[in-house]
């Protein structure tokens, strides 16, 4: 039955316009061209919108980026992350849709070009049969995926698909974004109706042409269509009835499909273009290395929508509202008026309103800051911890953090910030540190040590230890610094400090949006580092690590730098450090944003914990999904709202769920401060303790005799010593 030998391959094909009058065919072409015309016009409007943005800087390596984008799209790598079911369903829709689109394009190409040029169609014989089968399966995939998405929206209802906004009040015109909900459903229904009518159309054609053996006998190459055809015949539909059904349905199916094409540039359908484009423009260091600000520029950061780079404008259009960022955002989780998704959608709505018209509105109407519909509140921008959770998980490479920081730059220039933050910035300008201590006290923590630490500005050293503000000035963290210094000293590491020559590294100052102050700090540090002799920098501060590693090179400071975790891990592996007293604690590890997500330093702290003989139990959110302590982006210098649960407290609850947890391990000075505080305020004091990894290392390296008297209970004395 499936053999083509019995038929002339030229006859094994599908009728296209059979039974259509010439005017009807002409009408179809007219509608088709009109749809394509609307699509092209809409595309131009979108391109014009992007062109109203600013140039995006350096030229892009388009070929490798294109290859990378294809890989991402074809594997759906970014879509299956943290939501595998939705990712798989989207994969079905994507491949179904793509195959059906390619199939339809093939038919058009064959009918309108190949057949006319070569005089014969290639869409025949075995090729046609396999084509039918593949497209039938593509239709099944499409409908299957769509049904899951409908079930997801209608029944499963994951919280991240709730579009109501944390930054607006009920009753505000843009509070619930119900338009998006309706658009989602319209999109799903349109696609599913196109898919379903496609099958019914196929079936009615089979029934209509059942008298033709080359149609009917080969019908099972279109298994779904054939099945439906059998059912139609079973229900008593004859060839004539099927023919009538076919001509009606043909126009309906065609009109719907062409409408969809025409609407691509104007609706969420455009993500099929903008999402891959955004992925292709992905900057792998988007948040790690913030864009520089031209010092002579009249304009500061993002004030109006036309200050955005065209790439960021395109980013806005790539958002599919999937909610992964909304779910991951620590500010949103703690009730702050910020959801990264809403920032992007607000700006997108604003851009569409302002930049799609023929003429650009007045400058005053282009400001993205304010309290109006579509504008972004300053409270929203200041809620961001720049923890990069949103950028990390965004499946379409939207750069939320750089966009927010660019907008903050404008707020900083206008002084629109918390008084406490303003004071801190002035303090950092004055003293070079956020504690307001004098420069000469920076190395005050070294005084109790029984040995001298080298001054790298005077004596050459192998390792320059960049300490950072918190580890140098905060009394609790000073103990950790002393422990690390002792460890380095005892193991004979040739190391030194910049002493009072060190300034705040500027990572968080830059993320606050005070670019001028950042440049000053970076230049000071680079000058100091330039005047010192060392082989590599080791830092105990992930924030300093990030900016020195990723941002200083743009200011002329290129160094070999690592976080202490990788340094210590190597010492353990090389045998320079020997664990004398395996700890046996049940621990969990908090990945600091700037070590983990920002710089992918996930493994070193884990390997150290393993070497120390700790039993590591991961929290649900770990590694790239680590949940920010709430201190980043300058938030450590701003008061959190009273009453609301802070991100650090939420994290404590997460750790508290681990049965028998003894130590909550951190490897960032700010984490130590934030979580020791949260431990008390969230009521877990006495249940487990917060420790800097360095403290566990020191404990495990100690002579067993010296700690023999200590209880093994870390919560009691050993760790509280």
């Amino acid at each position, binding site marked *: 039955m499936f053999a083509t030998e019995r038929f002339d391959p030229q006859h094994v094909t599908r009728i296209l316009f059979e039974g259509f009058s010439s005017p009807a065919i002409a009408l179809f072409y007219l509608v088709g061209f009109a749809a394509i015309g609307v699509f092209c016009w809409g595309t131009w409007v979108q391109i014009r919108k992007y062109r109203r943005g600013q140039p995006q800087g350096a030229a892009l390596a388009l070929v490798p980026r294109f290859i990378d984008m294809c890989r991402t799209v074809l594997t759906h790598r970014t879509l299956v992350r943290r939501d595998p079911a939705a990712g798989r369903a989207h994969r079905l829709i994507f491949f179904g849709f793509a195959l059906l689109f390619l199939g339809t394009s093939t038919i058009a190409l064959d009918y309108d070009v190949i057949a006319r040029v070569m005089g014969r169609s290639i869409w025949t014989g075995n090729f046609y049969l396999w084509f039918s089968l593949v497209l039938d399966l593509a239709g099944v995939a499409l409908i299957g995926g769509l049904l899951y998405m409908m079930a997801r929206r209608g029944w499963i209802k994951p919280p991240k698909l709730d579009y109501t906004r944390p930054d607006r009040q009920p009753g505000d015109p843009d509070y619930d974004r119900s338009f998006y909900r309706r658009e989602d459903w319209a999109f799903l229904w349109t696609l599913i109706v196109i898919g379903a009518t496609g099958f019914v159309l196929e079936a009615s054609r089979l029934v209509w042409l059942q008298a033709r053996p080359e149609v009917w006998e080969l019908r099972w190459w279109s298994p779904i269509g054939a099945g439906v055809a059998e059912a139609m015949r079973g229900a008593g539909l004859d060839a004539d009835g099927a023919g009538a059904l076919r001509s009606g349905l043909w126009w309906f199916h065609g009109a719907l499909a062409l409408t969809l094409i025409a609407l691509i540039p104007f609706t969420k359908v455009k993500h099929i273009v903008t999402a891959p484009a955004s992925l292709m423009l992905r900057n792998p260091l988007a948040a790690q290395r913030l864009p520089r600000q031209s*010092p002579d520029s009249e304009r500061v950061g993002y004030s109006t929508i036309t200050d955005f780079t065209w790439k960021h404008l395109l980013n806005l259009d790539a958002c599919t509202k999937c909610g992964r960022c909304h779910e991951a955002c620590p500010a949103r989780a703690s009730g702050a008026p910020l959801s990264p998704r809403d920032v992007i959608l607000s700006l997108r709505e604003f851009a569409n309103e302002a930049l799609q018209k023929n003429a650009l509105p007045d400058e005053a109407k282009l400001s993205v800051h304010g309290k109006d519909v579509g504008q972004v509140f300053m409270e929203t921008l200041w809620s961001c911890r720049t923890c990069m959770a949103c950028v990390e998980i965004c499946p379409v490479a939207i750069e939320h953090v750089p966009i927010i920081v660019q907008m903050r730059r404008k707020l900083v*220039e206008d*002084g629109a910030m918390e*008084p406490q933050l303003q004071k801190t*910035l002035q303090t950092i*300008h004055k003293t070079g540190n956020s504690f307001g201590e004098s420069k*000469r*006290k920076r190395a005050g923590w070294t005084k109790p040590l029984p040995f001298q630490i080298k001054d790298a500005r005077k004596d050459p050293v192998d390792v320059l230890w960049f300490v950072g503000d918190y580890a140098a000035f905060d009394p609790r963290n000073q103990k950790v610094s002393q422990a690390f210094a002792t460890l380095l000293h005892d193991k004979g590491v040739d190391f030194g400090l910049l002493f009072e020559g060190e300034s705040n590294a500027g990572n968080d100052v830059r993320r606050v949006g005070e670019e*001028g102050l950042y*440049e000053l700090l970076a230049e000071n540090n680079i000058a100091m580092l330039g005047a010192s002799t060392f082989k590599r920098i080791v830092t105990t501060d992930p924030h300093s690590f990030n900016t020195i590693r990723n941002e200083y090179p743009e200011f002329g400071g290129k160094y070999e730098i690592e976080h202490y975790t990788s340094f210590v891990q190597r010492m353990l592996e090389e045998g320079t450090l020997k664990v004398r007293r395996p700890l046996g604690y049940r621990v969990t590890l908090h990945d600091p944003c700037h070590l983990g997500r920002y710089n992918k330093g996930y493994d070193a702290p884990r390997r150290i914990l393993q070497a120390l003989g700790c039993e590591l139990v991961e929290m649900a959110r770990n590694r790239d999904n680590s949940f920010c302590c709430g201190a980043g982006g300058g938030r450590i210098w701003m008061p959190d709202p009273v009453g609301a649960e802070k991100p650090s407290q939420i994290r404590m609850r997460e750790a508290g769920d681990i049965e028998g947890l003894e130590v909550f391990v951190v490897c960032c000075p700010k984490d130590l401060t934030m979580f020791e505080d949260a431990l008390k305020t969230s009521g877990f004091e006495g249940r487990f303790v917060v420790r800097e990894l360095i403290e566990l290392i020191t404990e495990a390296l100690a002579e067993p005799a010296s700690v023999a008297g200590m209880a093994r209970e870390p919560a009691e004395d050993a760790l509280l010593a």
Partner: protein
Amino acid sequence: MKILVPIKQVATLDEDFEFREDGRDIDPDFLIHDLNEWDNYTLEEAMRLKEGPGGEGIEVVVATVGPESADEELRKCLAKGADRALRVWSDALEDADAIGVARVLAALARRESPDLIFAGVQATDHACGATGMALAGLLDLPHAAVVAALDYTPGSNSATVRRELEGGSYASVRIDCPAVLTLQLGINTPRYASLRGIKQAAQRPIEVLDAEALGVTADALGAAGSASRVRRMYVPEKGRAQMIEGTPAEQAARLAQIIKEFGGAA
């Protein structure tokens, strides 16, 4: 119209500091400089008038009496929107007290003839609280000290001010202009000068004047024009607290004895 805002570069101390060899001041190595806290408010008040209704024609002039390092504070003011910056210095001014500084400012004010002068109530370092009022005295202008609110329409020849008095009470005062006002903290919310603004202000000129060139004669300059002189700077001896040991009865007896001794001494 013109508003003159005299400012001061003040010093803050490190926790461990040393005195200068002559014992009359702190060793400059231990000082961190900054703009006097009150001056953020005086400049902001001037800017508020300038940016408010009818303020288009207002020129805000910041001025200081200080060495070159004080330019940094003037730049902060330029970054915040001041139109012009002036600095007056002569080595002899090293020994000037508040009155001595006021003499120089008065000479400057005569040259500039502003419609209003906004000075801070006091400076965070020496805390004399005298410069503004001395300036008013030297210029023989109406004055109001410790102003917590100002109601002034640009161009008008009087202003209404709310003066902060002791015990949480206020006095509302109408004052004729030109006038010298010393403004209190909290009168407004000072703006932030971004580093970018400060850097850009570095390109703008600061007019540097010699005190003599302003007509301050040698007999009124520095120590000669001052009413006081620092003899010695020192850290007071730590308090003489002591724990009284013993039973409650013994402690009470000892306490009574100490009170009697002090009573006798008084």
